[in-house]
């Protein structure tokens, strides 16, 4: 597997070097290939009844808006025997979103294939639906840096506890919700769990919540999704390419984030099993748990 990238030393060194150097915001004359690439955001799971796949186009780098929606596409997902059709929303604000209402309850272990037709172009991707372990419990603890007085602000670390499924290629993603509001929407906020060196009994910090964003009695929900090794790499490379961009301590050159889509499309298609667990938040003691 692709090991988690070591970005911490580089980030800290850059911080040190920045104290000696300067940073200047610039606008560069970049080659513009607006609309050239199809971007697919497809995360299908067995939790929600409504599943969607979003199609957009790539945009100019300096364009402050997201890519334009891709309408009138044909979007299907199949396991080889049953085909699930995704229909584009008729609501203007949801253009480019393609919905399906029955795939979620029909997911079974195995390979799923995405097919997209737009104009005269065809794109495909495939993803394996793999199981996810049951979450045993959710706990919270005062953040280490807060507890040590290293940072002035109060943060709480949220922990997931589970027993891993036997296997050598297990990868998971954990989302955190407070009162059913997703706190880790962006790719760089999600907690990734790779199987390298993972113990059978796992206790991991999955997110740090600012003290002003949570109070006693709030409902904490953790959502753990099975993902492929490629999706795991997608997120780690997303983090690396967006956080280490231009860092003179970076070892590897800038590159496109990997994808499992064909024909030069970007983004990722993933089919996941999901397990969830909830707990009421109580202000923890300085000792964890």
């Amino acid at each position, binding site marked *: 597997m692709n090991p988690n990238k070591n970005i911490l030393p580089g980030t800290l060194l850059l911080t040190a070097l*920045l104290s000696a*150097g300067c940073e200047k915001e*610039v606008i560069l004359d970049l080659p513009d290939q607006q609309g050239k*690439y199809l*971007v697919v955001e497809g995360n299908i799971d067995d939790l929600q009844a409504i599943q969607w796949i979003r199609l957009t186009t*790539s945009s100019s780098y300096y364009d402050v808006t997201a890519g334009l929606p891709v309408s009138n596409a044909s979007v299907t997902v199949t396991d080889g025997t049953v085909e699930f059709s995704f229909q584009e929303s008729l609501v203007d604000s949801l253009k480019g979103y393609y919905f399906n209402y029955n795939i979620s309850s029909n997911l079974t272990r195995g390979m799923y294939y995405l097919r997209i037709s737009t104009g005269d172009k065809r794109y495909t991707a495939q993803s394996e639906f793999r199981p996810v372990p049951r979450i045993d419990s959710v706990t919270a603890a005062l953040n280490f840096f807060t507890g040590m007085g290293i940072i002035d602000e109060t943060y709480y670390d949220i922990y997931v506890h589970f027993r891993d499924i036997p296997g050598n290629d297990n990868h998971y993603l954990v989302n955190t919700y407070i009162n059913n509001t997703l706190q880790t929407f962006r790719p760089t906020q999600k907690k990734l769990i790779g199987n390298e060196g993972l113990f059978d009994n796992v206790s991991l910090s999955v997110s740090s919540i600012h003290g002003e964003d949570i109070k006693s009695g709030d409902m904490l929900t953790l959502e753990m999704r099975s993902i492929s090794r490629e999706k795991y790499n997608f997120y780690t490379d997303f983090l690396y390419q967006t956080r280490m961009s231009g*860092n003179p301590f970076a070892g590897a050159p800038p590159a496109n984030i990997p994808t499992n889509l064909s024909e030069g499309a970007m*983004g990722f298609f993933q089919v996941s099993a999901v397990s969830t667990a909830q707990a009421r938040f109580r202000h923890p003691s300085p000792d964890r748990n």
Partner: protein
Amino acid sequence: MIGKKVFLIPLYLLLTAFFIPQGSIAGEYTVSGIVTDAETGQILAGATVFIPEFQYGVITDSAGYFKLSIPAGEYIIVFSFLGYDSHEKTIVSGSDITMDVSLTSASFSLNEVVVSAQAASSNIERSGMGMMNVSIETINKIPSFLGETDVLRAVQLLPGVQWAGDGNTGFFVRGGEADQNLVLFDDAVVYNSSHLFNFFSVFNPDAVEDLKLYKGGISPSYGGRLSSVLDISMRSGNMERYEINGGIGIISSRLSVEGPVRKGRSSFMLAGRRTYADMFLRLSPDENRRNTRLYFYDLNIKVNYVLDEKNRIFLSGYHGRDHTAFSEMFGFDWGNSTGSLRWNRMFTSRFSGNFSILLSNYQFNITGDIGPASFNWQSFINNINLKTDFSFLYNDNSTLSFGINSILHMLDPGTISAGIEEAYATEKELPAGNALEHGVYLNNEQGFFDNLLLLTYGARGSVFQVTGPGKQFIYNKTDPTHWEVINSFPLERGKIYDVFYGFEPRVSLRLSLGANSSFKTSYNRMIQYVQQAQSAQSVAPYDVWYMSSNNIPPQVADQVAAGYFRNFLSDRVEASIEVYYKDLGNISDVIDNGDILGNELLESQLRIGDGWSYGAEFLIRKDEGRFTGIAGYTWTRTRRKIDEINDGKPYYAPNDRKHDFSLYGGYTVSGALSMSLNFIFSSGRAVTLPVGKLYYQGAFAPIYSGRNSGRLPDYHRLDMSFTLTPGRGEGNRRFTSTWNFSLFNIYGRINPISVSFAESSDSPGIPRSSFFYIPGPIPGITWNFNF
């Protein structure tokens, strides 16, 4: 895999004994001796010894030793060395002659600071091309960064040499990577030549005697790197009197002491320097700043002992460390150590040898004491090199040199201890690598038609043996983007596994076109077995070295070059045009999204392919008189082609820069005042720029179209310095001091070190791009003293 016993050392001793001839050759007469500094007695390596009548000369070796073969008769021999007055001697040969010659420093004799006395026409006469040297006097005059004189910045002024950018002492030679330069300090390899994130080099100018850069026509005595050899000699110390040199600058101070241990027989040199920004930080009321460390130091030592007229021993060492730490949470230390022990023996007037033991070490240590994210990473690379070189003057036109060496490489990428999460294993051991590298070479310099034609030809044979302890991996390489490990096995100590053989022919030809001009051409094959995984843009001091293995073949470079050399104004101005083409085989690059830091499967992140570079270099330099200068222009292109990168299409190397121009000019206004200017222009280097962006789950990421298909803005900069020498010319004062005032990047040009594409921290989701750069102008003041 069949293991073999290591029987290298007996073989080494056997070959060494075999090559030592026991008697002298009758027939022609020899003139031999040692060239030294008249004032200090220090040996002068690289001095030219020239017989005008034959249009033939030699260069003194690292022990200052020379030998020439001449027929019976009366001749004038001219001795010269950069920064010294030329010296002529008339000899009448009828027997072998031993003569030691002392040259007088030009600055001393003229009683003013003048960079002068370039070896008269040596650039025209020698067969080797692509060799350049810069005197320490010139280096001291080049406007410096923060007042810190830097040896490597002088190298970067030479045509064919490109530098990595501001705050970076790395350099690239004729399309090569930084790790393809063999940097030697008294023959010992220096793995990382930088201090403080590449702002300064490890070479303390007080400890440097001489430097020579070979970018082509490289002697087969050198091996192990593809692109160039930077051979730096440490000062051996004043044999006649004690001397103290030093300097106090705004960020560091230096002090060196040298003198005789036994007058005329032995000398020593001790030099050290240290930056002291951290000492001022300790006075800060802010606790975090008080706990910040950011300094480096280095120490040089050399002892030179003349046993008798035929035997000399040199012992030298270097040790340097950089220490950084922030708020007691994060620390980063790295540094080099080298050691050299050399015995120089003149067996006969025609036959001499050098026997060396050389040690090199580079290591780094990163520690983070930051709670759940604590980690520690220690890594090192060492080598031990046993080396023997012989030189045999077998007639008046021919010198045969040969030698053998064996290197034991020991690479320990280290163990990473991490407390990142309680659920994970807390230690990752990166596989060690060990190898033996042996080289044997033969080189002959032969003159024809009264040395009108000078042919130097030879070859180097090399063997690289992968041995244990270590670990090897077998990959399934079916998917070019992802090599899957299918097996791994440990390498046992003392057993030899993969073996690579190399044959490296080297040929140089010089055709004299009269007293002032010559045409030269050369062919070189170079092989590199130990290399570094690091992108060229990176200034990180955590070098990741790796060796040839079952997955990584040795790199090979074939270079052809030709040049026209001409001197003007009685050899006071030299000019040259050189063109070259270099073919690179088995070069490696990091795959898209590759991870080379702390990755035990480092090899799986690299792909192998080809590269090529070609260019033309123009040089005019004047090293003598009140006005001195170096002007160089390089036009070059460097590309790579690796099937698994950039869709298999050729792409520019990161260090590709079409135009590179540098101009240095120094002018001595009076005995007490001199000034110098330095201007550099180069095309922007190749970088990977976005052509758009994608949105995914509310965040954007750049989209790139091709590796290194974009360019940073052109680089240019003007620097200036003044050197004031109070009391210059007022008698023969023992104590002298100079004030050096420098201004780096006078017009404050923003020359980006790197460009970043990331969302605005103030406005998440808004794309932005920014340059990281060193602001200018940057002043520097240094007070130097000598007594």
